[in-house]
C-alpha cells in the first residue's frame, strides 16, 4: 500500500511575526485589560476586608485600644457594612475607602493603573458630620496615611499569591486563545 507523505513548509519568520503582532494586539485589547482590572480590584477589596494585604500571607497588625474606641463611637452613628467588626483590622468603618478603589486602562502600555478615587464623605457623629482632617479629604490621602502606618492594602511589589497570579495568567491565556483564531 502506497503511503502518501506530505510535508508543509512554513515561513517561520513570517508566522512568528504575525503571531507576535496578534499576541501584542490581544494583550493590549481593552476587553482583556478591563477583565484583569476588575478581577484585581475585587481581589484587593476581598483580601483587605479579610484583614490581609494583597501581596503578603499575613494579616494587618491589630488595632490599638484607642482606635477600637473610636470605631465603636463611629459605628454608633454611621452605617457599617456586614464585614465590619469593632476589632477587625480591615480598613473598614463605612466601607467608602475600599469601595473607592478603581482602575484605569493604559492601553498603549498594556497596563492597568489601580488607585483610590474620590473625596471622602465625612463620618457622622453625635452632632452631625465630623469635619475632615486636612490630609484626609480624599480616599487617596486616607490610603496614603494608612500606608504610612503599615496598612499597605496593595503595592507595586507583586500581584498577590500564586493562586491569584495563576488566575490572572488563566485570563490572559484564555483571551489569547480566543483571539488567535
Amino acid at each position, binding site marked *: 500500500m502506497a503511503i502518501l507523505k506530505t510535508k508543509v513548509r512554513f515561513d517561520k519568520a513570517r508566522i512568528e511575526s504575525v503571531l507576535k503582532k496578534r499576541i501584542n494586539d490581544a494583550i493590549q485589547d481593552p476587553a482583556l485589560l478591563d477583565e484583569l482590572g476588575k478581577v484585581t480590584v475585587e481581589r484587593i*477589596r476581598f483580601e483587605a476586608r*479579610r484583614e490581609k494585604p494583597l501581596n503578603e500571607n499575613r494579616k494587618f497588625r491589630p488595632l490599638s485600644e484607642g482606635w477600637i474606641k473610636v470605631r465603636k463611637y463611629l459605628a454608633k452613628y454611621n452605617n457599617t457594612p456586614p464585614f465590619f467588626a469593632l476589632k477587625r483590622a480591615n480598613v473598614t468603618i463605612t466601607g467608602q475607602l475600599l469601595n473607592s478603589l478603581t482602575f484605569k486602562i493604559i492601553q498603549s502600555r498594556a497596563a492597568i493603573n489601580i488607585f483610590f478615587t474620590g473625596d471622602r464623605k465625612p463620618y457622622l457623629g453625635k452632632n452631625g458630620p465630623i469635619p475632615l482632617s486636612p490630609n484626609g479629604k480624599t480616599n487617596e490621602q486616607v490610603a496614603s496615611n494608612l500606608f504610612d502606618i503599615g496598612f499597605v492594602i496593595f503595592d507595586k511589589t507583586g500581584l498577590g499569591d500564586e493562586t491569584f497570579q495563576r488566575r490572572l495568567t488563566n485570563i490572559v491565556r484564555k483571551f489569547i*486563545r480566543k483571539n488567535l483564531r
Partner: protein
Amino acid sequence: MKKPKVSLSEVSQTIDLSEFLDATYTEAEKLEIGQALIDRMVERVSEGKGLRFDSRSNAEEIKLKSPYSKTYAESLDFKAAGKSKNKVNMALTGDMLADITVENLPGAKIKLTFNDETETAKAYNHMVGDTVPQRPFFGVTKDDVEDAISNISPATEGPRTIRLLDLLSALDSDGDS
C-alpha cells in the same frame, strides 16, 4: 458520553467528539469546543444549577442546594466577597471555576479538568459533599457538546482557514522548517 471522574486527585470529564460527528477537528478547534463547554458549565453554575448523572451517564440538570448554610453566610469570607445567601454560584473568589481548563487528548478527545491541586480538592469536596453540602456543579451534557460543536466548522466540511494556533502547533513540531 462518560460522566465526570471525581476523585481527590482529579475532577474531570473526558469527551470523545467522534461520538457526536464524524469529522476531524484540529487541536485549535477541539480546544475551542472545550472552552465553549467550560463557559456553558460556568454559566449553568452562575444560575445556581448543576448536573446529576445516573449510572448510564445520562445527565439531569438540577438546582444546586440553596441557600448557603447559616454558618457560612455569617463568615467573614462570605461577607467580604459580597455574596448573597440565596444566590448559590459556587464562587467566593472565583478561583475554582476560573481554574477549569481544557486539555487536548489523542484522537477526537478532550478533557475538562482542573489545573491546580487545591482547586481540584475544593471541587471534589463540593462534588461529593465531603465537608460541605453536596453541590454537583461540574460536568457537561450531550446537548452542551452538540451546541458547542454546532458553532465550529470541522475540517471535513470543506476548505478551511488555517488558524494561527494550528500554525503554532505545527511550528513546535517542525523544527527544521
